[in-house]
C-alpha cells in the first residue's frame, strides 16, 4: 500500500514536471509570438480605446423651439461643421424651401416657413460639409407644429380646423382671451425650458459607434474570410 501511495505521488510529481515543462515551452512560444501579436493588439486597442473620439461623419440634428427650428451640424465626435451649407427640403418632393450656412459653432436657425406649416410638411434638413461629407435629419411636422404660437399660425391660409381658433360666444370673450394668452405664455415657457432637453434628445437619437459595433465588425471580417478559406480548402481537397 505504501508503495502504491509512493507510486501515485511520484506519478503525480511527474505530471507536475511535465506540466511545468509544457508551460515553459508555451511561454517560449508566446514570447516568440509576442512582438508580432503585441503590434497587432496595439493597433486594435488604439481603435477600441479611441472610440469616443470618432471622426468623419456629419451628424445633423434639429429641433423646434417655438416657431424657429434650431439646426446643429457636427463631425463626430464634437467638432462643429463651420460654414456648412444647410438646405431645408420638403421630404416628399425634395423641393428646397430655404438654404443657409452654419455659424462657427456649427449652428443654424430659421423661422419655420409658412408653406411648411400650411401643408404640414416633413422637413429634410441637409448639412453639407466640405469634401463630400454630408448628413441629414428628418424633422416631422408633428414635432414642430404643436410648439408654434397661435399668432404665427393664424396668417397661414389653409388652417386645419383643429388649430383654428374656435368661434367665441360674446359673453365668454374675456375668459377665452385669457385662456389664449395663458396658453401662449405657457407655450413660450415650455419651449424655453424644453429647448435644451430637445437638443439633448435629438443628439441622443443619433447613432454613435459603440464597442459592440467594432467587435461585431471584426467578427464579421474574420467570419467572411473564414468562410472563404473553408470553401477554398474544400476546392483544394477536391482537385
Amino acid at each position, binding site marked *: 500500500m505504501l508503495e502504491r501511495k509512493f507510486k501515485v505521488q511520484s506519478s503525480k510529481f511527474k505530471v507536475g514536471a511535465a506540466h511545468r515543462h509544457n508551460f515553459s515551452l508555451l511561454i517560449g512560444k508566446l514570447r516568440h509570438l509576442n*512582438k*508580432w501579436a503585441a*503590434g*497587432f493588439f496595439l*493597433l*486594435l486597442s*488604439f*481603435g*477600441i480605446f*479611441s*472610440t469616443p*473620439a*470618432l*471622426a*468623419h*461623419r*456629419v451628424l445633423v440634428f434639429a429641433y423646434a423651439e417655438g416657431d424657429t427650428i434650431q439646426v446643429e451640424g457636427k*463631425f*463626430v*465626435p464634437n*467638432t462643429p461643421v*463651420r460654414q456648412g451649407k444647410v438646405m431645408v427640403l420638403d421630404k416628399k418632393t425634395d423641393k428646397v424651401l430655404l438654404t443657409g450656412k452654419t455659424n462657427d459653432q456649427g449652428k443654424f436657425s430659421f423661422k419655420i416657413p409658412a408653406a411648411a406649416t400650411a401643408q404640414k410638411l416633413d422637413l429634410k434638413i*441637409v448639412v*453639407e*460639409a*466640405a*469634401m*463630400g*461629407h*454630408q*448628413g*441629414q435629419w428628418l424633422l416631422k411636422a408633428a414635432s414642430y407644429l404643436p410648439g408654434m404660437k397661435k399668432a404665427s399660425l393664424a396668417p397661414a391660409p389653409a388652417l386645419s380646423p383643429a388649430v383654428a381658433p374656435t368661434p367665441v360666444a360674446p359673453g365668454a370673450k374675456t375668459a377665452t382671451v385669457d385662456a389664449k394668452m395663458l396658453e401662449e405664455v405657457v407655450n413660450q415657457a415650455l419651449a424655453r425650458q424644453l429647448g435644451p432637453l430637445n437638443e439633448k434628445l435629438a443628439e441622443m437619437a443619433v*447613432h454613435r*459607434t459603440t464597442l459592440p*459595433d*467594432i467587435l*461585431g*465588425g*471584426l467578427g*464579421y*471580417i*474574420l467570419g*467572411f*474570410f*473564414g468562410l*472563404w*478559406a473553408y470553401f*477554398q*480548402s474544400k476546392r*483544394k481537397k477536391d482537385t
Partner: protein
Amino acid sequence: MHISEGVLSPAVLAGGAGLAVVGTAIGLKKMDYEAIPRVAILSAAFFVASLIHVPVGPVGLHLVLNGLMGLLLGWVAVPAILIALFLQALLFQFGGLTVLGVNTVIMAAPAVFCFYAFRGLLRRPGTPATVGAFACGATAILLSGLLVALALITTGQAFLQVAKLVVLAHIPIMIIEGIITLFIFLFLKKVRPEMLEGIYA
C-alpha cells in the same frame, strides 16, 4: 475619405461600383489559399483604423492605412478594403451602401498603384526600402484625396479648389501614415518577413 450618401450623381456611383467589381474580381483571383489569414488581419486593421481619430486640421480626420494595405497585399487589397468599407458603412455609418463602390475605388486604387510604384524601392535593402515604405503610406493618402476631388467634380464643385482643400487637410495624415507604414514595414521585415512576400513575387 469616405464620401457620404446622397452627394454623388448616379452615373458616378455606377462607375465607381463597376470599377470596384472589376478590382475585387482581380483581387480575389490573385488571393491564394495561404494569403487568406493575412488578408483577414489587414482587413480588420483597416476596419478599425478609421476609428483612430487624429485631432489635427480643420475637420476631424482619421487614419486610413490604405498605403499599408497596398504594400502588403497588392491587388488583394481591393476585396479586403471593400469588406471593411461595407462593414464601416453598415455599423458606423461611414460612407454608405450606395457609395460603397466609389469609396472602394477612392481607397483601394491608390493602394494598388502604390504597391506597383514602390515595389522596386521596397525590395532594395537599407535606406531605399525605408524611404519607399514612408512614401507608400503618404502617397496613397495623397492619391485618395485627389480621387475624392475627382469624384466631386460631377457635383459641380471645382476640382482644384476641392483638391487643394482635401490635400491640405490630409497633410498631417499623410505624414502619420507614412511613419506608421514605415514602422510596420521595418517591424515585419525583422519579425515576419513572409508577410512581405508580395513585394518580392
